[in-house]
């Protein structure tokens, strides 16, 4: 898989719903269309909700990677 060029990184592992999504959304809005945001998030509630909310807002998840107890998402701004 081609490596993506990450424009910004966001760590939402210390946060809970709905801040997890709010932070992701705000960060994405700072990017230009097509740029990639890297998000680190926890297993459980955040991984259940953040991807679908991001997708619902018209962005594209281009990579999901499982790290130790957490996840790394690469989201392309839509």
């Amino acid at each position, binding site marked *: 898989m081609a490596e993506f060029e990450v424009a910004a990184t966001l760590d939402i592992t210390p946060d809970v719903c709905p801040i997890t999504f709010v932070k992701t959304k705000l960060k994405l809005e700072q990017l230009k269309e097509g740029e990639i945001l890297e998000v680190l998030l926890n*297993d459980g509630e955040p*991984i*259940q909700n953040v*991807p*679908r*909310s991001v*997708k*619902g807002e018209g962005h*594209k*998840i*281009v*990579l*999901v990677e*499982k790290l130790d107890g957490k*996840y790394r998402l690469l989201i392309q701004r839509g």
Partner: protein
Amino acid sequence: MTIDYNELKKGGFLRQRQKDTFIVRFRSIAGNLTSDQLRKLADLADTYGKGYVHVTTRQGAEIPWVKINDYDNMKKEITNYGLTTGTCGPRIRTVVACPGLEVCQNGLTNSRACAEELDKAFFGRPVPMKTKIGICGCPNSCSKPQENDIGLVGVIDPVLIEDKCIGCGLCERVCPGKAIEMVDGKPVLNRKRCLFEGNCISSCPVDAWEETRRGYLLYVGGKIGRLPVLGKVAAEFLQEDEVIEAVERTISAFERLGQQGERIADTVARVGLDAFKEEINILDIESKSADTGTEQESEVG
């Protein structure tokens, strides 16, 4: 004057603990009251009650402290205002509903509109024992349909388009029922565990999960009270235009099978879920939806 308490109860006037004093119950449709209705409720509470409104757990509003002598005047005002009173006793009660897909991010079905139809078709109908209906727009079940005699839960049925899948494993993680397992890099769905919530569909980055159908699960025999029971699934993927028919049949099955003093929960416990389902003739409704798929019109409803 002679007071017909049953007539009063039917119209939402409930006897209060204090002599000659009533609680007047109003109903909302799917939990919504317009600002106009709220202003009128406020006026009524000031004029006939003690200036407050009690919000009930079943999305109703009650004005306590109404004096029996005010009954006629208040009744007139209620009618003129276009407010709708609630009911109690052995009748179909207010349909409780969540907002559903109109406003909720998770919503799969339009529970608000469906509640309106149910209200129109069934509210206040006399039945052997009080019968409550609840509906929600997804398995999150915010309006708790499973604790109603008849419950409806919006659901969606996922199918995997294997060619599209990139094997990222996200759906395995997001599935609330742990129904998806990655086997050799591809997701495998255990349909017995599927909650029909569609989180796989809404999360998959490449849209490899698609919707095959959506509709309602029908739950029968839930109740709270002293001995709470959760309703059991009697039918899957009822289409919107089949809901009224299915509820109608559930009520008439209860009328035929129910014994003195039983709620639907008691009848289902006594005769068994399968016998109750047979009496509803749910298979008949189901086979229609199975034959016709998602989009087609059904004859019922």
